[in-house]
């Protein structure tokens, strides 16, 4: 009894948070799910159409294409940076910091992290210019060094646009796993490595058996957050390609944005974002369960 009166004194502090989240998160979320079952232009009142938007969605080639592009972007934003980041973090922590010194390791780390601090829109502007077909730096450089035949319309040709975006995203994401993994590596007892060295373990064995095993919590956090970030990607696509050319780089969030604000198909846009949300929540639950299981064993 004493416990519950004690708690009641604290519950007051939740009131601003509950009111604010209700207004900004719960009400809009419920509204979007409701609107996804209607036909609505944003003016007048929505008309109930049941599952029409969803059946249309599953027959829409653009919808499937946009999720196909996301799979490639997960490769570029989550898988490749995590793998490269793991190797680089281990090399910086275990090799550069020891064979040279800490200063080198931290300078390199900061340099790799740099793209992460830039606003998404600004990275889009930088790369939009570098990859521009007529006045872009990359084509100019290729011409200068005599490789003019390699010059391409990097973002304007449907054959290359998505790969160009993927390359930009690897550049953008790489610093995040490096910093996360290096901070995790600091927990490792140096004696573990020394013991492994005495046992004659190779660098690769140490990397697999000690490094990866010890920073598994960070590994999960990085994989979850980067995968979800790739599902949500909007800013870079908006600035670099606007989903084009001919939908070659269309992604779900930009697809929803177009339906909301350009085509005035609010019901359809809501269905797209509802599907995206369900996917993200499922993904988060799966990851959390995997993580819990890994921690228990």
């Amino acid at each position, binding site marked *: 009894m004493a416990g519950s009166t004690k*708690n009641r*004194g*604290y*519950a007051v*502090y939740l009131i601003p*948070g509950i009111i*604010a*989240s209700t*207004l*900004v998160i719960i*009400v*809009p*979320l419920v*509204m*979007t799910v409701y*609107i996804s079952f209607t036909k609505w232009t*944003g003016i007048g009142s929505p008309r109930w159409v049941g599952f029409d938007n969803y059946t249309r969605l599953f027959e829409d080639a653009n919808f499937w294409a946009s999720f196909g592009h996301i799979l490639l972007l997960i490769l570029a934003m989550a898988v490749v940076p995590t793998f490269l980041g793991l190797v680089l973090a281990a*090399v*910086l922590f275990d*090799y*550069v910091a020891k064979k040279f010194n800490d200063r080198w390791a931290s300078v390199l780390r*900061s*340099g*790799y992290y*740099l793209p992460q*601090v*830039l*606003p*998404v*829109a*600004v990275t889009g*502007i*930088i*790369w*939009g*210019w570098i990859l*521009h077909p007529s*006045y872009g730096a990359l084509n*100019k*450089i290729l011409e*200068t060094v005599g490789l003019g035949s390699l010059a391409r319309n990097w973002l304007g040709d449907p054959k290359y646009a998505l790969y160009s975006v993927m390359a930009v995203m690897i*550049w953008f994401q*790489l610093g995040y796993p490096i*910093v*996360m993994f290096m*901070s995790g590596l*600091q927990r490792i007892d140096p004696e573990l490595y020394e013991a492994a060295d005495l046992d004659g373990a190779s660098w690769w064995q140490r990397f697999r058996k000690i490094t990866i095993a010890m920073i598994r*919590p960070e590994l999960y956090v990085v994989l979850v957050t980067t995968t979800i970030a790739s*599902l949500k990607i*909007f*800013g870079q696509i908006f*600035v670099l390609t606007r989903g084009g050319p001919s939908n070659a780089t269309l992604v*779900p*969030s930009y697809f929803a*944005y177009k339906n909301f604000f350009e085509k005035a198909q609010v019901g359809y846009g*809501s269905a*797209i*974002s509802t599907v995206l*949300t369900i996917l*993200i929540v499922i993904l988060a639950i799966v990851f959390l369960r995997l993580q819990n299981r890994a921690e228990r064993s």
Partner: protein
Amino acid sequence: MTVTATRAPRRRTEERPSLRQRHPARFFILTGLLILLLLMVAPLLVVAVNAVKSPAEYAANGPLSLPHHLYWAGIVDFWNRVDFGLKLWNSFITSLVVAVLGVVLSVFNAYALGIGRVKGRTWFLVFFLVANLLPQEVLVYPLYYLSKQIGLYDNLLAIIIIFTVVQSAFGTYLLTSVYTEFPKELLEAASIDGAGKWLSLWRVVVPVSRPTLAVLFTFFFIWTWNEFFLPLVFLISNDNQTVPVALGVLQGDRMMDATTTSASALIGIIPAMVFFLIFQRTLTRGIAAGAIK
């Protein structure tokens, strides 16, 4: 003195050529890492070089040549054309208010959940975790519609309210796990001294957790500064745009040539770099704190 001073550099020159022969692996790994570093920063360097180059010189010598003289007109023209000072102010005031209010809201929530252990706390935490994961696309249209109804559309206030709540969802999650471990003796000592919950919060909990709060403040400020999607939808008039929106919507504009584009990119990079330098210490510590959760 003089002996050691002259000997030190000579030893280094003796050692340097042998690095490659004596430690080939070491040499190649370091070279590889430095090439990667160059690849990572090269885009920024190219931008910086061309932002201060005249269009004529760019046309003549291309993107890689160093400018013969510093040409500031590109940056100045662009600054004046988009009224960049105003955009900086909009971004700054939005990010600052969101960071302050977001931290306060996170502290209130975490005080109730982490220290107060209010009933149903697990469910509240799950809620804040999910809220933090939601894509903004699923909230945007109702928020846009409702803010039009109550006259907050195209108003910085709408962005401030929305981001305060969105950021504090993360803050609540992180801070609750910190407050769960809060030393009980400190709170008991405060209550023996006659401090109520309100006083304990401000006199004990907040000062003790100041490092974590500083990290949250930093995160909220930078995240809000970098936000693009919701400001793009909400802030349509020129006077209300934030820096990323002002720069983002100009992409593909006919007025943008190579040097103007790099000038615009450079003035977008500079504030971010300044924050990076100011906050680097808190940031690194913060990333470490986030990793442990």
